[in-house]
């Protein structure tokens, strides 16, 4: 077979639906034998947070950010029809009915398929997110790490 192609996705958004789209594309590309990297930056980092109470030492501002931002994939809001939390509940019900995989399962599947999940350290600093607050098996990097994968990517997406 020809040289392995690459798919690179920048996940900037912290919306449940957008993150789902990113992870579905990523998993599909991995099945196509692409080498896949998802670069999580800004609100996209929230998809990688553990849904646990952790108390890493933080400044006051970092603590505030930590409280205000959703903890983990299944707590992300929708980009449309959020309805104060009702929207995600409704859509998850519909997803269950149609056997669509929830985001946290899509993330585990991505890890199983050896998709590189990259967290942007610069925005982690800005938002006060510590490495131990993120899921296991996440790589840390910056723009150069992304470009290294992205420069010869067959598919590059910004979501």
């Amino acid at each position, binding site marked *: *077979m020809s040289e392995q192609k690459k798919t690179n996705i920048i996940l900037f958004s912290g919306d449940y639906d957008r993150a789902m789209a990113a992870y*579905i594309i990523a*998993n*599909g590309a*991995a*099945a*196509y*034998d692409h080498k896949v990297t998802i670069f999580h930056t800004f609100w996209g980092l929230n998809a990688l947070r553990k849904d646990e109470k952790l108390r890493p030492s933080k400044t006051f501002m970092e603590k505030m950010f930590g409280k205000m931002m959703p903890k983990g994939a299944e707590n992300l809001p929708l980009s449309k029809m959020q309805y104060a939390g009702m929207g995600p509940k409704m859509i998850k019900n519909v997803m269950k009915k*149609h*056997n*669509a*995989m929830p985001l946290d399962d899509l993330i585990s*599947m991505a890890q199983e*398929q050896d998709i590189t999940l990259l967290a942007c350290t610069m925005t982690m600093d800005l938002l006060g997110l510590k490495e131990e607050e993120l899921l296991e098996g996440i790589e840390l990097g910056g723009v150069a790490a992304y470009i290294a994968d992205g420069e010869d990517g067959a598919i590059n997406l910004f979501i």
Partner: protein
Amino acid sequence: MAEIKSDHILDAKGMACPMPIVKTKKEIESIEAGKVLLVEATDPGSKADIKAWAERAGHQYLGTNEEGDTLKHYIRKASEEEAEGETSFENVVNNDELKQKLSDGVATVIDVRESAEYAFGHIPGAKSIPLGELDSKIDELNNEDDIYVVCRTGNRSDLAAKKLSEKGYKNVTNVVPGMSEWDGDVEKA
């Protein structure tokens, strides 16, 4: 359509995109080259997905049967030996020459592809004997017949033709390339 034989079955029923493809990819890694995988799915998008994926990944997409809500996709895992396409059996005709023989009505065509490949399209009147079953079915052939052995690319039929002539069949001819480039009549069963 009668039940089509497959070597492996993957149950992807109820799964939504992208799971049928993800599971199919995993499954096909575990099976032997040249074997046929049946993927049963209910996602209507899986037909386009599986076909596109198989062709890109180098596997052979045979076809899809619909049974109620279930889509049955048949894929044959790629085999590198076949891709090389080297044949060494001396008695060879091309597709057009076979077509001529068929219109003269003198040819017995033996299709040595897997039965699932045969089911999704073969030369009318061709007899299906998958290469792996040739030993046990060799007695069904008549030594007097003009036997033309066909497969997808001419590679498996090359092996089959050699075996037949070793067993004493005199009038054996390999058809090259075979079904991959066949533009004559096709029958499905």
